[in-house]
């Protein structure tokens, strides 16, 4: 990579980091109760014995028990979905791949619907919905992997096709369940469209280990994915254990995605668009795309969530709607300015 290319990457990283900082501040400051940034910073310092907090107990609760966990969960979800999407695009060498490709979304959707409709016959979404969603997501990917390619002998195209089959099967089962119980249909829809509204420190702690490990694995696989851009046979001849690498990164992306989906529902668009925007800006190497996608995805989702919870306050827009509403124009804009690599 030449010097101007390196400068471009530095610029993109700097802008992304600035965006991340803005997202963190906005995620804490913006809301129906106006609380200034400096008073929040003052409160932070007071905890380590410097100065005194000017926050009322109510304000402190709003910041540290509502907005902060929601913001952090948004960072984790955005980072994980973006890096998983980028990884899938690399490992399947398919620009249309997103984290839900192998049935994670359909499996989680079915699991959550079962929890909400069948067993949770009450009027609220049961607290163990995430557990069933998580199980459904992992179960779906496992079935896809077994059907698509007898373990290590899976090829990208058989896996994608098996994913399509498993996803449509589970989605139809989910739709049937959802239609059969009209009184819970709204709650199912709310869950399906994704929301950070139920975020708590507990949900943050639940997904954090998955996101941390899986993100590290995906980012570390960047070099392997770059080698894999010359195809399976050639990368094997270059010394890459292609099948083991594929199994490892698909497992990591799917596990991380399943954890996120079970906590926040199905948030679309982040996983497919963020890595593409990053690719248009910094080139085709996954060693650059993946780490920058982590930062960009985190920032993007928190900003989208801020829009989702403020634009029609006091009610909220579904997060999945906002990610597409904000993301699509941004993507089209960047696509029209920066052409993808010549082909």
């Amino acid at each position, binding site marked *: 990579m030449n010097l101007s290319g390196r400068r471009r990457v530095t610029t993109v990283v700097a802008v992304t980091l600035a965006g991340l900082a803005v997202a963190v501040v906005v995620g804490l400051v913006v809301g129906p109760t106006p609380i200034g940034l400096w008073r929040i910073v003052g409160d932070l310092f007071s905890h380590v014995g410097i100065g005194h907090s000017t926050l009322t107990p109510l304000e402190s609760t709003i910041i540290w028990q509502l907005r902060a966990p929601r913001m952090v969960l948004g960072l984790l979800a955005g980072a994980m979905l973006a890096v998983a999407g980028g990884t899938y695009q690399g490992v399947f060498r398919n620009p249309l791949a997103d984290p839900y490709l192998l049935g994670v979304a359909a499996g989680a959707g079915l699991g959550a619907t079962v929890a909400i409709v069948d067993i949770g016959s009450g009027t609220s979404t049961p607290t163990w919905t995430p557990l069933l969603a998580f199980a459904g997501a992992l179960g779906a990917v496992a079935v896809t992997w077994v059907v698509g390619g007898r373990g290590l002998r899976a090829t990208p195209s058989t896996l994608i096709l098996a994913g399509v089959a498993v996803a449509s099967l589970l989605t139809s089962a989910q739709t049937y369940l959802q239609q059969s119980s009209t009184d819970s249909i709204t709650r199912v829809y709310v869950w399906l469209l994704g929301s950070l509204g139920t975020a708590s420190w507990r949900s943050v702690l639940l997904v954090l280990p998955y996101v941390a490990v899986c993100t590290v694995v995906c980012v*570390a696989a960047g*070099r392997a994915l*770059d080698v894999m851009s010359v195809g399976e*046979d*050639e990368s*094997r*001849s270059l010394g*890459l*254990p292609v099948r083991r690498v594929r199994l490892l990164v698909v497992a990591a992306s799917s596990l991380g995605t399943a954890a996120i989906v079970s906590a926040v529902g199905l948030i679309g668009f982040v996983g497919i668009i963020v890595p593409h925007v990053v690719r248009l800006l910094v080139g085709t190497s996954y060693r650059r795309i993946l780490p920058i996608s982590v930062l960009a995805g985190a920032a993007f989702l928190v900003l989208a969530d801020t829009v989702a919870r403020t634009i029609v306050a006091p009610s909220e827009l579904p997060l999945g709607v906002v990610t597409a509403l904000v993301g699509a124009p941004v993507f089209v804009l960047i696509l029209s300015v920066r052409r993808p690599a*010549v082909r």
Partner: protein
Amino acid sequence: MNAVVVTGLSVRAGGRDLVSDVSLGVESGTWCTIIGPNGAGKTTLVEAVAGLRRIGAGSISLEGRAVGELSERARAKIVSLVPQHPEVPAGMAVREYVALGRTAHHGLLRGASVRDWTVVDGVLRRLALDEFAQRDVVTLSGGERQRMVLGRALAQSTPVMVLDEPITGLDMRHQIELLELLKKEVAQGGLTVLATLHDLTLAGQFADRLVLLDHGRVVLDGRAADVIRSPELSVAYEMALRVVEVDGTDVVVPARTRLDPS
């Protein structure tokens, strides 16, 4: 010493033998070319030697080590491959592409070291690719592209190189140019080459030895000049071939009438 030893090799796919009971050895630092009609099993054979095919029966050893028992990484330090239809990943610079050849040396978690880049830049200079070093791989012409793929294989610094129809789609000058570059690596670097080639005249000119493959079996195996002049060649290709000597070089000329199989 033989760098490549193939013994009784059979490779099956789709219910039939693509290669059956093939045995051959390639002496270290020499060039052996596999010839034969389409569908004779040439590609299967060289891919098996490169470790990319599941072996049905027999064995392949490279530098004295059984190819099936080597890890992908260990094997990639012994044998490199120039495929028939290399994938050209858009957006990658030529220097990065050639550096892919160093993957087995630096591993997946660490990047290319200073030594790796020294090897890469040395290869770029040897193949006169240095002026393209920062160009996107898709902007190269066919000849430059094929030289770049050869560069990646050379950067692998392996004692054995396998090439599958490396000059397909190149004009005459670029064909000769590429083969001359390879010949230099054999003569000066002690590289062992196993290649497939369709052009029989070029095959005869550049290889030390020719092996004629037909229906997955070895029909002829010998000095290039002898194999080129053998009547078996016409039988394998199912057409009359004539050899004409032009300034000391054997030129294989196809006749237009089909040889009667009786």
